[in-house]
């Protein structure tokens, strides 16, 4: 297997930064194409008027998930060499709730706030400024939250491992749920 390329030594650190830029440009391009730079559109998710956020996010997840499964299955991607973000159940649950609140309030997430700002929207800029402040506040308050932050570590565990089901079964279930979700999203939008 000769991928991930960086992990098998295909190129060095400087080139990897070049890739960071290129991948970022492509990411930002598609975010804007999908309308994700528009706070009104993003907020519509939570009022069931415009479910583009769900469609974009889960189309992406399904695409990558299927790609990862099949590239690994065909022996073209060495899956163990791909870094899986470690699980910390409680802080990720709490952090998710806090993040969701901030998201519906601000109308943009960290990535899309950059897209919004770069396309000329001042509110995007303000979300970015708020993000910097929020990160700063967290760092300064760290001793208070440290206990929770470090709690419930579970390592780089994935759903198939947790539920003791084959990877392929998990893929099927996730895709099926996503497709059903898309169906429901179309229905909600038709009603709005």
């Amino acid at each position: 297997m000769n991928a991930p390329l960086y992990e098998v030594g295909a190129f060095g650190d400087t080139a990897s930064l070049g890739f960071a830029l290129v991948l970022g440009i492509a990411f930002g391009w598609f975010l804007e194409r999908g309308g994700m730079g528009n706070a009104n559109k993003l907020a519509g998710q939570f009022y069931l008027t415009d479910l583009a956020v769900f469609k974009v996010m889960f189309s992406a997840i399904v695409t990558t998930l299927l790609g990862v499964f099949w590239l690994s299955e065909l022996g073209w991607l060495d899956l163990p060499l791909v870094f899986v973000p470690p699980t910390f159940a409680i802080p990720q649950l709490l952090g998710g709730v806090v993040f969701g609140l901030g998201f519906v309030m601000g109308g943009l997430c960290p990535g899309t706030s950059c897209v919004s700002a770069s396309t000329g929207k001042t509110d995007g800029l303000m979300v970015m400024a708020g993000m910097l402040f929020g990160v700063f506040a967290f760092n300064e308050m760290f001793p208070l939250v440290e206990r929770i932050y470090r709690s419930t570590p579970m390592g780089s565990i994935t759903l198939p491992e947790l539920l003791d089901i084959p990877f392929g079964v998990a893929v099927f279930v996730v895709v099926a749920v996503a497709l059903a979700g898309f169906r429901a999203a179309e229905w909600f939008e038709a009603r709005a």
Partner: protein
Amino acid sequence: MPSANRVLAATAGLLATLALIAGDTLAPGGAGEIGALDVARRLRSDPDGIRILDVRGDSAFADFHLPRARHAALADAAHLEAWVAAARAGGASEGDLVVIVGGPGIDARRPWLALKKAGFSDVRYMRDAVTDWLESIISPILGPDADDEERSAFEEQAEIARYFGGFPRILTAAEAPGGDVSERLRKARRRGCAF
């Protein structure tokens, strides 16, 4: 629904259905990782029930390796299979804990996967075994502001450390652990936080 969406949905559905009936590919993740402290505990309590396989290079192995570790350089894939066979013939049962020792630039997960597929039920790996062993067993440290729970956990760790010839230390307030913390974190950070 517009036809482009139908095509996408159908493609996704087809690929997902094929995934369902495809063979049992190992999922992403790191539940196979094991820490130095756990390895040390097993080495002490059940030395014959644990096999340590070091897949780093020759000089790395010669410089320092874990107690009772056997060497099998990664480049020599055939050797790995031979080891598996020899291990079985020599009495290593599938119930034994097999630990793959990796290091910087060496990925312990591939042999881990190979052994798992070969039928060993309890295989684990250590990403950077030497650093982990040095930090947890040879020179474990506890900060001066640790609470009771941390202290009693450290006492157990210190006892194991001494058994393997380590030098556990509880830092005094004067020895600010600032620099130490930053160094370790910088290493962790370099491994790539995808967020």
